[in-house]
């Protein structure tokens, strides 16, 4: 699963074609439409602790100057669609929010902001832009290969990504619970605490959590798969030390709910339901960990309801202790440190794809490029709030205003979020193909300690990169990788399908060794 494909135009070998520009502009428009819907309907940003808007704009600029090169570096090791396959079955931070929206949106919103400042023309970095959009499209199609959509929005805000064999295990192993039972209470307490913790570790954004699904369990129950990621000493330097006692870097909760329908799973990885989900609707729970060194999800405390209750309570206490330590660290930070952490959290939201490819380097992901850094002095709170509001909500920056005949999706106003690539470059209008290599950056944060919490213990970065390169989960070996859901539908009677199912059932309490048969073992 390695080796970058030479793609005309997007690697700088040959000029961009008309078809490539059309594809890029389609991807830009998809991203722009969904950005507007998400920003208008899903949140209002604000924090007394973090200068959120300021760090967001800084991260956008950093993404514009750095994503093309770091993505090309990843594809020298592993292609985008292969990265998607590698991550679909584990709960790492390669998810709807980070890859479905952050990757294209941060990059393109950075471009849009720089356009409004007069620092760019629409055709500048044209080959970079086409390449980033092509990377995103291939990743997304791979990630969504079991549902065939390009993102959750195209699926009607739904996020069903897992194959039947994994869902059978999740359903069979889930522990039912009802309000008042210890497991029910422990689960709700854990979910609240881990959500709070994840917002803090992510510097006031939701990128350390993700929800996928829903999956229908029966006529009255649906299941969400809820991932909580980068909870320990990972590639976020501000977690060093204060999270040393966190056992699991990634946790996945399978959450069954009765009496509500999860009608929105958006491209930020967040959910809504009708009627709105409340704690008493929780009807079942499972707990797993995973990372690049596991073959799928590994059960955590799943021997019995009592064991799971005790495990959830123990982890909840771990998280509370770490949360207080981390909060005190952050409350003592300077504004520049708060900005750097937030900007790097955003910019590096996609960093785990470098871990997937076994080529993560601190200097690629945990520094602010000088071309972005120079903009910091204008990023006071008021300007940043207003400029970000214009950029993603009001759409009133001059480059976002369109012909008066136009009626934008969702708003009917003559506006757009993101500027397409001008086709005029095919007619000979000059353009600059790329922003060029990333430049040595800087940060006001403490350097990253060489400690990475994995399912094989705490590794150095060199050990972690090597271990990932050396390991291919069995289900992703050539024998099994392309045995898709369509194949399973017509070949479940074969021994090969039986083997495939048994891989996912290895750690199952109830289905181990069952294969493609139906019902319990």
């Amino acid at each position, binding site marked *: 699963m390695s080796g970058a494909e030479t793609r005309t135009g997007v690697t700088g070998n040959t000029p961009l074609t008309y078809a490539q520009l059309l594809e890029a502009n389609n991807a830009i428009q998809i991203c722009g439409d969904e950005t507007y819907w998400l920003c208008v309907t899903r949140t209002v940003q604000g924090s007394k602790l973090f200068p959120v808007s300021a760090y967001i704009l800084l991260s956008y600029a950093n993404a514009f100057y750095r994503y093309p090169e770091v993505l090309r570096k990843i594809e020298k090791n592993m292609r985008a669609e292969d990265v998607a396959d590698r991550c679909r079955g584990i709960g790492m931070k390669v998810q709807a929010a980070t890859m479905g929206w952050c990757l294209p949106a941060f990059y393109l919103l950075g471009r849009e902001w720089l356009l409004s400042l007069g620092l760019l023309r629409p055709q500048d970095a044209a080959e970079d832009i086409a390449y980033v959009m092509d990377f995103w499209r291939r990743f997304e199609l791979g990630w969504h290969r079991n549902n065939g959509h390009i993102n959750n929005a195209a699926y009607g805000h739904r996020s069903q990504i897992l194959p039947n064999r994994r869902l059978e295990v999740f359903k069979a192993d889930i522990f039912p619970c009802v309000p008042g039972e210890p497991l029910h209470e422990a689960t709700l307490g854990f979910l609240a605490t881990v959500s709070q913790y994840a917002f803090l570790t992510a510097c006031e954004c939701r990128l350390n959590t993700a929800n996928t699904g829903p999956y229908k369990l029966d006529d009255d129950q649906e299941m969400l798969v809820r991932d909580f990621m980068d909870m320990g000493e990972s590639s976020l330097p501000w977690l060093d030390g204060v999270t040393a006692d966190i056992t699991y870097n990634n946790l996945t909760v399978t959450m069954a709910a009765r009496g509500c329908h999860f009608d929105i799973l958006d491209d930020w990885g967040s959910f809504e339901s009708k009627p709105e989900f409340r704690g008493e609707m929780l009807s079942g729970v499972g707990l797993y960990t995973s990372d690049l060194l596991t073959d799928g999800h590994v059960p955590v405390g799943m021997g019995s309801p009592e064991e799971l209750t005790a495990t959830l309570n123990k982890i909840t206490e771990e998280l509370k202790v770490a949360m*207080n330590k981390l909060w005190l660290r952050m409350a003592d930070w300077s504004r520049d440190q708060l900005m750097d952490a937030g900007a790097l959290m955003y910019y590096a939201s996609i960093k785990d794809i470098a871990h997937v490819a076994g080529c993560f380097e601190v200097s690629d992901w945990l520094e602010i490029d000088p071309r972005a850094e120079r903009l910091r*002095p204008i990023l006071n709170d008021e300007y940043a709030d207003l400029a970000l509001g*214009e950029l993603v909500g009001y759409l009133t920056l001059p480059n976002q205003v369109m012909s008066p005949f136009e009626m934008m999706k969702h708003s009917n106003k003559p506006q757009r979020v993101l500027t397409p690539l001008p086709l005029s470059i095919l007619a000979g209008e000059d353009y600059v193909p790329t922003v060029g290599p990333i430049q040595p950056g800087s940060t006001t944060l403490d350097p990253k300690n060489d400690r990475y919490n994995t399912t094989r213990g705490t590794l150095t970065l060199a050990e972690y990169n090597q271990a990932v390169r050396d390991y291919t989960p069995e289900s992703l070996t050539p024998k099994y990788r392309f045995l898709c859901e369509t194949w399973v539908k017509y070949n479940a009677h074969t021994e090969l399908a039986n083997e495939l199912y048994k891989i996912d059932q290895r750690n199952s309490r109830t289905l181990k060794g069952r294969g493609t048969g139906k019902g319990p073992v």
Partner: protein
Amino acid sequence: MKLYVDHDRYGEAPQFALVEAVHNSVRDLVRRKLKESGDDWASFVFGSGEKLITKADFEAIDAKIVATGYRYSFTSMASVRDRPDIYKPAPDTTTNADTFCFEHPEAVTGPPDAEGRALCGVGDNVSRRPTNIRGIARYIRSSEQVIHYMKNGMPENTVAIIDDSGGTLTAPICEKFHAVICAGGTVRSHLGILTREYGIPCLMNARISGIYEGDEVEIETTAPAKTAEAYQTGQDMPAYIWRIAK
């Protein structure tokens, strides 16, 4: 000299004056440096321009605005703490706590009703409940206050009044709140998401007036939770807030 993006058939000035001022200054800077370079744009944009347009140039733009006497509004307390010279003064959240209250211009108010409840505002309900919630109002607006409650414990029945829709400022003490009134955000803001997870009654986007530290308040958590459709269409779904007569 005009930039490529200066020729814009449809574009208008940005909506906000500060954004327009900053962007005009940056465009002036780019024009000046492009001329100074003697290069064409293609050589300038990711070439000589990266050396010629420096952080010091952006510092000069900021300094020029501040030199007019303008002081920026702040959202992060760290911003005004680190650069008091460029921001409007921070409110004192400790010494005047008993006399401080939010006074929102859109607050809906009214005289006490038969139960002694004086209407003090409205908000967006995060999650509908079978009964309304009563508790004691306490403003929580700074890291120092959070540290105080970490050390001394959170008093029971605290209805936290917060002007921060985020989920980080109150992270160490959030689970101890009896209820939350947040003067910002939407039910989908981080604080709205977290209170829903904790099962803590919460009104977001609250527009309130006349609630002081220590007042007993009631919030209408029996009101319908505000929906995504209501936000998209601008439909109001008010949940009321009352102060209880002493």
